[in-house]
């Protein structure tokens, strides 16, 4: 899933300064799971904005902060539901991931769409209140060679041929709070009886599949209409 976190409220308030009618739009999928931008969070953020504006004495009948949540901001079919509310606002504050913000900006041409979240990574909930990155979306998966643990996303240096000299006691040189991805890979390959596979020199990665110029596309010819 896509993991995001809310921007600091002060930054959001600066962003919407000058607009009178704000629509806060939550997203019901990934960011709901990571509790960054679902229905509940949209309601809380709208309230925080109202309170901040009230403190500044800015509330009047002409000023309005409303909220709405769609199932998925990144798909056209769900955005039609909020077209009227969007039309009635000066600016839309999206609580979707970066894809959601951009989908809304394309759908509602001429409307100011602002991001309320910082989109972080593809990952999973580790435990209550903790999400970690697992995949860098590099476009050329190596998990078959690394025991199902991604060195591109999880090694601070994205190394393909084993740990750097800074790995100690299972931790990364960057911080004692970061597991060394290569220690995890080593331990898993050892438990699988596949340590020998780590003796092979992996060639330079084909980053063309990651950053080949312009946005990447996935085309399924069999699905095209």
């Amino acid at each position, binding site marked *: 899933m896509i993991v995001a976190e809310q921007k600091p409220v002060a930054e959001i308030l600066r962003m919407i300064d000058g607009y009178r009618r704000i629509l806060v739009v939550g997203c019901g999928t990934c960011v709901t799971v990571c509790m960054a931008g679902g229905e509940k969070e949209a309601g809380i953020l709208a309230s925080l904005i109202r309170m901040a504006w009230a403190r500044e004495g800015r509330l009047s009948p002409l000023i309005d902060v409303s909220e709405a949540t769609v199932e998925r901001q990144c798909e056209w079919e769900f955005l039609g539901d909020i077209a009227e509310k969007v039309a009635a606002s000066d600016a839309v504050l999206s609580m979707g991931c970066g894809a959601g913000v951009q989908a809304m900006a394309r759908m509602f041409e001429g409307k100011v769409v602002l991001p309320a979240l910082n989109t972080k990574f593809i990952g999973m909930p580790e435990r209550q209140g903790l999400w970690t990155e697992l995949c860098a979306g590099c476009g050329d998966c190596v998990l078959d060679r690394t025991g199902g643990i991604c060195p591109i996303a999880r090694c*601070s*240096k994205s190394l393909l*041929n084993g740990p750097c*000299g800074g790995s*100690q*006691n*299972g931790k990364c040189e*960057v911080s004692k709070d970061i597991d060394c991805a290569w220690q995890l890979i080593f331990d898993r390959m050892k438990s699988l009886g596949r340590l020998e596979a780590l003796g092979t020199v*992996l060639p330079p990665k084909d*980053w063309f599949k990651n950053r080949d110029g312009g946005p990447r596309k996935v085309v399924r010819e069999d699905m095209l209409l």
Partner: protein
Amino acid sequence: MRSGSNLEKVLAHGDFAVTGELGPPQSNDREVVVKKAKAYKGYVDAVNITDNQTAIVRMSSIAACAIAAGLGLDPVMQMTCRDRNRIAMQSDILGASALGIKNILCLTGDHQSFGNHPTSKNVYDIDSIQLIGMVKGMRDDKRFLNGEEMKSEPRMFIGAAANPFADPFEYRVVRLAKKVAAGADFIQTQAVFDVPRFRRWMEMVWDHGLHERVYILAGVIPVKSAGAMRYMKNDVPGMSVPDELVRRMEQASDPKEEGIRICVETILQLREIEGVSGIHLMPIMWESIAPVIVERAGLLPRPVYDQDDM
């Protein structure tokens, strides 16, 4: 001869090699490089010039290598994978070769979060093992990484680093073997304070027969104070420092002298270990002490070869 560098000649002759490390200044002041290089002249066979070590912006390794070469030293250009992609690296290797640089040390590089530009974007397009393979391909096959042929090849003596004190310990020799398979000619290790653990690592090296395929130079650091020794022990990733050495430094009436003594003792012990072909001296910000250590370790005079020797 793969490169004809002085370091390669020393090692090929079977002499116990001595290399030193020189950190370029955080400025364009060539005199800093000249002064440090002169301290090494006649005392080391080659001098490593670091590449923005600890991710702090410094004079480029290539430029400082060229200055050192102009003073008659044999420079080892350190190159990290942190700051350049494969295009920039190959371009720099060609440029370095054209400037007369004949040794390269291929490194992953310290993460940028340690340095003075922690918000920078790192590169890590290729890793140190892939870099070794790339330089070997340029030298031995006259080919760029993409397979295209080049007109004249950079003659480089290819070095790599090994850290016997990092984890997973068991995997360290496998990684060394990968570096040798990729084309490393010589290895310089992380600084040795923990000689017993280094010896255990060397036993694994012997088991794989790697000491017969690559020259291994053991790293040593002369430490000036008890504080510095404690820092090595507690704050430098991938370092093993026995408590006994910290105690010796704490109890010493003249810590600098004690640091030199520990360094010389370590060199003498390392020299006795089969498969250790030399030492790599890393006197961080204390280059002027190199002559004292080399002399007291009985490593003088350094061998001198004619231009066309070997």
